[in-house]
């Protein structure tokens, strides 16, 4: 494992779901994690203690030496939000494909039909994308899309505005217009735990302004959306994400994905990537 891959923080569990010791995988290596006397811990296969961080309701660790703190999401800390742990979904795909799918809006009318999108409202207008060098993150802003039912709390179709942020190679944050509170953003994240290059555990998490919808409904809405994505993610060929242009054909609607792939390639993040065109 190269340092470019090892020196990141990765999610390995939902804090509320960790009791005794349990085994999982990270980047192809076995690890164990658990909670003893109120303290979370993670150990590698040789028994060595790995660093831990508890944040966003999840437990994070790193097999290497991260040279910076795990990212923060200041917007999610404003008072009045409900923090929603959505559990996890195991998907047979590259962790990078899972992130890329989360950054994509053009699939809404076809994969999340009548929920996040519907024909004939398929057009993706131009939006802004940049790789922010100071923070080493990918951002897409001014993303707009018509949605029949944007969220559990939305009624009827609206044009929703989004921002996407990739703060780490296997994590993405979505900021979305919030129907009950104009001017604020709902925060929906996707934390991906790479089990292997072609298998991942996906942990969605949300920080929403929504006081009315029962928690179980919020979770099942998100799970349903993600099940629809899984039927795509497990059927892309090749399983790994091609980083070199030529194998796949992007369009203007894919600017976020183009920037994400370029950023991964530039930072040498190749776990779950296909670097040489097959």
């Amino acid at each position, binding site marked *: 494992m190269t340092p470019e891959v090892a020196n990141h923080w990765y999610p390995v569990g939902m804090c509320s779901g960790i009791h005794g010791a349990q085994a999982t995988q990270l980047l192809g290596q076995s690890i164990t994690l658990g909670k003893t006397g109120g303290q979370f811990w993670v150990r590698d296969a040789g028994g060595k203690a790995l660093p831990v961080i508890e944040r966003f309701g999840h437990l994070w660790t790193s097999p290497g030496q991260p040279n910076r703190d795990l990212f923060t999401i200041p917007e999610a800390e404003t008072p009045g939000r409900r923090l929603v742990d959505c559990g996890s979904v195991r998907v047979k795909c590259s962790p990078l494909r899972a992130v890329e799918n989360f950054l994509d809006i*053009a699939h809404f009318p076809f994969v999340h039909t009548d929920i996040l999108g519907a024909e004939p409202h398929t057009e993706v207008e131009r939006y802004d994308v940049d790789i922010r060098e100071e923070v080493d993150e990918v951002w897409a802003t001014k993303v707009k899309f018509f949605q029949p039912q944007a969220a559990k709390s939305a009624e009827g179709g609206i044009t929703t505005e989004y921002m996407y942020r990739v703060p780490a190679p296997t994590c993405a944050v979505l900021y979305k217009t919030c129907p009950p509170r104009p001017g604020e953003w709902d925060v929906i994240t996707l934390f991906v735990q790479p089990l292997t290059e072609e298998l991942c555990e996906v942990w969605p998490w949300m920080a929403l302004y929504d006081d009315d919808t029962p928690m179980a409904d919020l979770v099942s809405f998100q799970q349903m959306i993600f099940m629809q994505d899984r039927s*795509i993610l497990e*059927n892309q*060929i090749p399983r790994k994400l091609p980083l070199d242009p030529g194998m796949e054909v992007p369009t203007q609607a894919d600017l976020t994905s183009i920037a994400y792939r370029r950023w991964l390639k530039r930072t040498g993040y190749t776990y779950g990537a296909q670097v040489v065109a097959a």
Partner: protein
Amino acid sequence: MPGRIDGQDIAIWRGASGQVHAWGDRCPHRGMRLSHGFVRGETLACIYHGWQYDADGGCDHIPAHPNLVPPKTICATTYSCAESDDVIWVALRPTDEKCPSLAGLRGVRSLTIDAAAEQVASHFGQAVNAILRLGTADNITLALQPMDADHCTAHALSDARADRTDVSRWLEHQRRVIEGQPA
């Protein structure tokens, strides 16, 4: 529907006019399997972002950019494909050969067997060939689809008056015998 020939994944689909097509099972946009797509008239649309491909495999519509005429270079991989006597034939390489005639026979059942096509042919004492005529009373004939090193699909045909259930049971029995043999 998906299919596999010599290790290649294939998407087989039928347009509204009845014409069948066999394409590589991969959308050029983001690699989604085209066999999960949906047919609209004479086009096949990919289920991921709805890109539409015409009968020649060329992309003619990108829903995210409805006013754009897609460049000619975006196209699915197409293979020769023909339908005759209840069987769909696909050639991975261009060929002038006509597909074999199975006139008078009727398709009964397709069964996937965990064995190479060669092994199935030799079980019936024949050289490997697309068609095995078994010379039974019902004229049972197998059209063999080699999938990969360990799998093939036997498409069984027989005389129209043969009892389908009998032929189908017979085929299942043969499969058990073949899969029980050492490769």
